[in-house]
């Protein structure tokens, strides 16, 4: 995907999952599962340096009621 000319802001993109409400819950759950699996994978592999995959980690994903 070619990036647009506009800086969308990573946080602002992520937030859209939260604002999406019920439909966002599935996406958030999947993203959290990815994060969990990534963490487990990292713990088994070499931690720290050389990480190239930034993910939706470290960010709470509250769901819209």
């Amino acid at each position, binding site marked *: 995907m070619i990036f*647009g*000319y506009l800086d*969308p802001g*990573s946080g*602002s*993109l*992520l937030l859209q999952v939260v604002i*999406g409400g019920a439909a*966002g819950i599935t996406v958030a759950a999947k993203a959290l599962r990815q994060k969990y699996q990534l963490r487990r994978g990292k713990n088994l592999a070499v931690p720290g340096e050389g990480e190239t995959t930034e*993910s939706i980690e470290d960010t709470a994903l509250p769901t819209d009621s």
Partner: protein
Amino acid sequence: MQSPDPGSFRDPASRVVLDGNKVLRLLDRRGLEGWRALAGTDLFASAVADRRLIGTTEIDDVPPGSAAALEHPMLPFIGYPYEWTFTMLKDAALLQLDLLRDALSQGLTIKDATPYNIQFSDGKPMFIDIGSFEAYQQGEPWIGYRQFTRQFLFPLMLRAWVGVPFQPWLRGDMEGPTPAQMARLLGKKKLFNTGALFHVRLQARVEARMTGRSVRDDLRTAGFSAELIQANVRKLRSLVSSLEWAPGGDGWSDYGSCNHVSRDRTAKSDFLEAAIERTSPQRVLDLGANDGHFSTIAAGAGADVVAVDSDEAVLDDLYRRSKGSSLAIVLTDLANPSPAQGWAGTERPSVVDRANPDLVIAYGLIHHLIYHASIPPREVVGWLRTFDCPVVVEFVSPVDEMVEKLTGNKLAHELHPDRDEVNFRALAGELFDIVDETNLSSGTRALFALQPR
């Protein structure tokens, strides 16, 4: 001879060039894909028909280096959001959201969300950047969301919730407040409002933690969909609709009921109509337009009119009343009008350069410049001459009741000299021929029709 529009360079896929009286949009290969995706939709046909979208025709004469060329009608005036009133920005925000909603329902998206893509035509907002539409790629979030909040939502919140006008902020920082700035501006206001919580406070917090990270691939893998954008757009629409501004009584909203205004209105209308008859203007600039009475007369005579005033309350009311008219409404202080700014100082030309009138109306204006803004009379007359077209101007004598109000706290030696009618005639006579004049019934006001020498 084609010249690039100085405000159209950020998107490499689509650039506007001016060619005489034509407005052309040149597309690269990617821009062409976006145009093809849009052109075949029901959205394009219906939005052009109801003037939510600017008229667009693909032309055969494609300049070298471009994949396609489109032609748009020339708009008589280009206005900027820092010159709009609250309701104008709100209507523009709703149009942006409605077009995005409709685009998504037809497999398209709008890749940015800036009020500079919207102009007012016939008293309604119209989206002018055809190049913003492109096919929606499954899994992509709304790239323009952050821009929408900064340039539409936060300015509206600033006025509706904080009670501060947004125009000075947008004029100073055209990108609009950041989420963190807006959170500080809100302070403890709207603590339990979900719109403030998500779009302001949470966005500020997440932005601070996510700086520099790439999340688009993650979102796609996690199953992000257009449905999520639609949900966000629905909530934003409801939030924007709920934002209201009720002007206080500190401005000119009841100007029409002032004694001198109702008394002189017929004489001033007759004098203007005679000037219009004499000059047949196509473009009229009404400086100090107030409730738009004289702008409306000029528009009724078939001119495109730019109505300028510094009072947001009266202009907001005028906007609400001007649906279907050819009035362009500009909120700016004429003692400090919108300057040329943006990239290279040319991206957004000054309001004076955009107006390009062939008749100027300056009723009820120059005494405010002279007595309130302390502009010397010679400077004021010289400034009227810079428009290089006929001017109808109302002279107000130093003994007029309004001048006495304006100068109540000033001592005589603190005022500029040359304020009386004899001096005004002399100053005007240096730069203009006085082709018509009449005294108003008050005896302290007179109208002059000035023709540049």
